């Protein structure tokens, strides 16, 4: 991704235009990722906002050898985990994915998604968090299993296993919906 390398370099040099382009390029991708991980529109917006604001403030010290897409995705995952942990601490009972189809629209209609996207997101929201991460990071963020394993602190085989379990479970969830 030569374009990303150029953007990284210009961002490092303080270019606001580069920041704007990175934002425009990855906003929807990170929003999709956060929605899949958190199943909540408002929290997903907050996470994406926080990631970009922190990123914007990091230009002076910004050092990145690898993929910008993976880096931003990793930041979203870390913040999403923090949010989930925070919710678990504050919640009385176990935290369940709370997405409803109408939530993606919301009263202000700030996040737009197709019905199929909402249905997929609901199904992904029923997976355990580590399986959710494996699926969306590999399929949507194009991260390698080696990178996912490193992020999750597990072996590559474990990450691969989580991915396979997740897909099988998703198939059964989605097929179950069809049968109904």
């Amino acid at each position, binding site marked *: 991704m030569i374009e990303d390398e150029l953007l990284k370099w210009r961002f490092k040099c303080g270019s606001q235009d580069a*920041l704007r382009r990175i*934002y*425009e390029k990855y*906003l929807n991708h990170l929003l999709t990722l956060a929605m899949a991980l958190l199943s909540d529109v408002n929290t997903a917006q907050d996470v994406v906002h926080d990631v970009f604001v922190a990123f914007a403030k990091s230009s002076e010290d910004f050092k990145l050898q690898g993929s910008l897409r993976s880096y931003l995705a990793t930041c979203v995952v870390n913040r999403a*985990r923090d949010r989930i942990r925070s919710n678990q601490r504050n919640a009385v009972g176990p935290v369940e994915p709370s997405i409803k189809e109408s939530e993606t629209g919301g009263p202000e209609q*700030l996040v737009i998604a197709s019905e199929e996207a909402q249905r*997929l997101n609901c199904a992904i929201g029923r997976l355990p968090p580590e399986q959710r991460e494996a699926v969306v990071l590999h399929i949507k963020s194009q991260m390698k299993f080696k990178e996912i394993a490193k992020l999750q*602190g597990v072996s590559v085989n474990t990450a691969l296993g989580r991915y396979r379990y997740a897909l099988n479970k998703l198939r059964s969830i989605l097929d179950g919906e069809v049968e109904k």
Partner: protein
Amino acid sequence: MKSVDQLEKTIRNKLSFTADGRLHNRILTEVLAAHEESKQGKSDPLSRNIRRVVMYSRIMKLAAALIIVGISVGICYITRDTHSSVAFADVVKEMQQIRTATWTEIDVVSPPKIKGAVQIVGNHIRQCAYKAPGHERQDTTQTLVDPRTGQPAEFKNIHIIDRNAGKALLLNPQEMTAAIHSFDPNVHQNALYDVFLNPPENIPSDAQSLGTKQIGNREAIGFRLQKKTDGTYPWSGDITDIWVDAKTRLLVMLETGAADGGWMFRLKDFAFNQELDDSLFSLDPPQGYRMLIPPPKILSVEPPKQD
């Protein structure tokens, strides 16, 4: 039952959430404000930050251009060089008397569109105003494709800077929201005026004459400045063409861009020393605007961490 491959393909292609224009603009405004605030918060030596400080806004860029012109004139005076030295001298002499200025900026050649990004239709148009000393305003208009409707929709933002007070007001007319951000006024003022009064020696002196041409109904004299390869030339483009009125020696048009033609923007429709109402530069949000609390300070972006 769907195969695994089909399921992967479905997720890849169908699982997508899109921010609409309002959400896009709301977050972008705060991200850009955070970026600017971050840059102002750094206290690096001026010598390291001079380019960044000068590039803070379009007006600073114009000021930098004028400085370059002035320095070039000075050197040309010393060397008793060509015809262009006379024009440069006149330009600087006139420009140093300016109390107010207004102009329009447009993207002549926009950078390439980014796949997957919010689609921008047409050019960014920026209406700029300057009032001495240190008051600046920039009204930006851009047309984006609303991802919900697929139709072009116009979005505006306004940026007002008071360098004496060290404050900047960002207005979002779509959301009717406003945000104030502070910066160290000494950094900017000193950076601007120090450079103006004590121009560094590394500013290029090799302005190339472009001859004359008609711009509108005026005859204009042109000069080309090229960026130094060592990065000491404080201007954003690799090549900057300055066109001044042959009679008044005031700026008529200024174009700057990349050497490979990948992007270029133009400053035009200059008007100087007109009365500009102070309300244009007021840091008080207009009636009906809701003041936003500045985004929370986040010390640094976290590196990827492992659980």
